[in-house]
């Protein structure tokens, strides 16, 4: 097997959403002294791009985009020790959570995983997150973005509370705030002073990317 073949195999195993094969070929690549940077730039990046195009052409489901992202993440972790000190660079950091009183986390999880697949570092606080936890995470993690989700009308008001608390503690200007979830509308986002509103996961990630680059 020559180098190009190996790189293509890794790429294809990502496109085929095949966890096992992707790990296997990555090991073979390392055994064959393929440059880890090349695996990242050729196999993973190209694989993700193909999957992204297939999603846009309605050939793939969003769930498959997510799985591909996870495979890419796993390969990167395997490559980590061989990257000679150079950490894989993240493009930005997001603190994300479903607000207090709301146990719905599936939409939040999708956004979270898609952010990771888009090279964000994601600090996921989970569901039913109280205001204080958001504040602490902002202080501790120094993210560029705070993302909040709410499915229920009754819990939407919590988003406002978080933004108010960020203001009071002088943290508001350090972060962009984006919100989303079934109950939330663009107008509501504006009315509580959020910087962005994601009608769906794809759009939410696009907005976050726009803020960073």
């Amino acid at each position, binding site marked *: 097997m020559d180098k190009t073949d190996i790189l293509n195999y890794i790429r294809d195993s990502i496109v085929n959403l095949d966890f096992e094969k992707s790990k296997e070929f990555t090991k073979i690549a390392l055994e064959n002294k393929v440059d880890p940077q090349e695996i990242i730039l050729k196999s993973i990046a190209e694989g993700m791009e193909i999957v992204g195009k297939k999603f846009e052409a309605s050939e793939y*489901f969003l769930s498959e985009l997510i799985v591909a992202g996870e495979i890419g993440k796993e390969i990167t972790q395997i490559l980590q020790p061989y990257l000679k000190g150079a950490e894989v660079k993240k493009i930005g950091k997001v603190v994300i959570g479903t607000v207090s*009183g709301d146990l719905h986390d599936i939409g939040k999880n999708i956004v979270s995983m898609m952010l990771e697949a888009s090279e964000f570092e994601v600090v996921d606080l989970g569901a039913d997150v109280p205001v204080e936890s958001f504040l602490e995470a902002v202080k501790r993690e120094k993210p560029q973005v705070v993302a909040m989700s709410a499915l229920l009308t009754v819990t939407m008001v919590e988003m406002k509370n978080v933004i108010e608390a960020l203001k009071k503690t002088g943290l508001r200007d350090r972060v962009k705030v984006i919100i989303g979830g079934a109950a939330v509308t663009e107008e509501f986002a504006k009315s509580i002073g959020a910087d962005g509103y994601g009608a769906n996961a794809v759009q939410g990630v696009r907005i976050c990317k726009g803020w960073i680059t």
Partner: protein
Amino acid sequence: MRFKEVTLSPDTLIFGRAKYPLRYGHNLEVGKGQVIPEIKYFPRVDKDVKEEYGKITESILKRAVDLDIRSLQLETELTYLEMRTKDLPGDITQLQRHIIDRYAQEYGLNIGFRVTVADIRDLGRPKHDEDSYMKIMETFESVASNGADVLSIESEGGKELFNYAIIRQDILGVVASIGQLAALDMKKLWKDIVKIANNKHVIAGGDSACAFANTAMRLAGGKRDNVIAHSLAALVRVMSASRSLVAYEEGAVGPGKDCAYENVFIKAITGYPMSTEGKSAAVAHSSLVGNIIAATCDLWSNEQTENINLFGGCGPEVFLEILYYDTKIMNTALEMGKEKELKSLFVKSDKYVDPQAYVLAPEVAYEICKAIVGEEDFFSRTLTSAYETTSMLLNDDRLALAKNEIRFLEATRTRLEGLNKNPSKVQELLTSYEPKVTKLRIRDYFDV
């Protein structure tokens, strides 16, 4: 008790008629030849909760009088936040009970009153979050003592694994979560609920796999949405049938909760009357099954409407009116002996639009039910019925499935085929998820 046969045939599985009708509340008869509107509502956020429930109840019953609606059911679905406030669930129930009694006496209305308790357990620890479990049971006791006629819940055991699996289209994880974890949790939960219902002489109404099947339905979205396969959402619905059936095996008698579209299967197997939401549920979420689900309902619901001003009245009373006109057509058909014709219109208008609609067609549902009752244990029921469904979906050309749906179904069929029904293998499968799913603790489900 374990259901081993399908009680209703594709022909006798029809709206308004159940094999075992119920009678409760103010002389409300359910499943005995007519479909009854079940109206659901929630208070506005910034208002006093009790005052809101009072206003909602009054306006609904006033509208019933205006339209000469003789029979109806109200459902109060308690929220997580309401559950957290001491005494509130009982107080709300009592308040509504008084208003209902007043209207029943003054106008001779036949009214049933369902209260649904929220599953407030932390997703990750369905068994070990003992405080929340106790709180749920206390709330059931309280609402039963304060005037609820029917008790329901949308329980969420198994959801921590399901949430992980569904957004990855990981069919094995989905089967394991619904077919094993959810079912085990239901068994314990419903044993306890039925005990309370029997003590308080109220009806144990049943459970909804809302947290699973409706989550999948919402993820599937509209015809052109592409988040997860629509076939997967259909499979989750089918698998939910085995799960929700457990409530009835533990002693629930219906009417099953409206948002459980799997009630089509449950009604066929048990012969108990069922509630379903349909097209008017658009007020809460879009769906591709708005008509076909009407084919088999005994109560007909709007999912849930906020108490906002809609010019023609507040939300709940407006939707009661819409539901009522729907039920009038069904009931006229029942009176005229034309119910099969109308049922056929409901079915045919949706059946081939989407796999999610397809599996709810009575003739399809019947075959799926046979697969369910043909197996002995929870997991095998779930697995086999899902497997059979993949074949049915792949083999009916009229469905005109998109390429990615076919690809998904074929891969899924292979995966399900490879899944061994052997209990130790199932355990092994489950255990494999524990490191991946943060809050998952498999042992919790077995150490009951």
